[in-house]
């Protein structure tokens, strides 16, 4: 078994070889998100935005909110089942989480301040949210493919 004995600062050639080995092993760990993950997230977040508009009949709003909640639970459950089947849980870095969620949160806050008399604003914000999440998903997938 490898021990720490004799492990000192490597030469540039040894360091380059170690980096290459680490890159190869890292690529072996790459596990993409399922193709439906970002579209499902986009639909759910857009639906949450649309539900903020006050044009819904309360009963319709309640049913829609329940449908969104059920969709969210189903998506989370499907994701966990996939992770267990593959034996790998993909990682989203904190930077990626912030980059994805912060603009959506800012849109939601802006909507809360600007929606007075403009319920259509939520449809615009929902569309922007969906496009943002889908665009980020495409960027994330392309970056993950490039890293492999």
């Amino acid at each position: 078994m490898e021990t720490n004995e004799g492990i000192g600062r490597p030469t540039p050639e040894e360091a380059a070889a170690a980096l290459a080995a680490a890159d190869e092993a890292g690529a072996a760990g790459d596990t993409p998100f399922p193709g439906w993950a970002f579209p499902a997230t986009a639909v759910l977040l857009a639906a949450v935005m649309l539900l903020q508009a006050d044009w819904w009949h309360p009963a319709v709003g309640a049913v829609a909110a329940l449908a969104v909640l059920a969709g969210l639970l189903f998506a989370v459950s499907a994701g966990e089942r996939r992770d267990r089947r593959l034996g790998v849980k993909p990682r989203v870095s904190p930077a990626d989480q912030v980059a994805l969620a912060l603009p959506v949160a800012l849109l939601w806050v802006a909507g809360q301040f600007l929606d007075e008399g403009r319920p259509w604003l939520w449809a615009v914000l929902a569309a922007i949210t969906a496009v943002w999440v889908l665009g980020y998903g495409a960027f994330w997938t392309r970056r993950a493919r490039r890293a492999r």
Partner: protein
Amino acid sequence: MKTEEGPADGFDATIHAPNRLRICALLDRVQEAEFAVVQERLGVSASVLSKHVSVLMDAGYVKQNKAVRDTRQRVWLSLTRSGRAAYRDHIAALRAIVGEG
């Protein structure tokens, strides 16, 4: 020429051992991975992986969670926060040695 270095520059002798470096590299890309998947993707035996994981756990770099699935116990491995930081510092130290840093 090899010279011994302390952890100050990010170089970490515990991580640098070839198999441990590969384990950390794989775990750095995931949130969590099952023991058997790590073994298969790195092409190492269960005993070798187990020994290296023990060393990394003793260093506080890797943690394991046990979960039962299909009546069998599965072991999931992940890097700890300090393990991820140590691995990335180590990679930065290697890049600096190569001259990329």
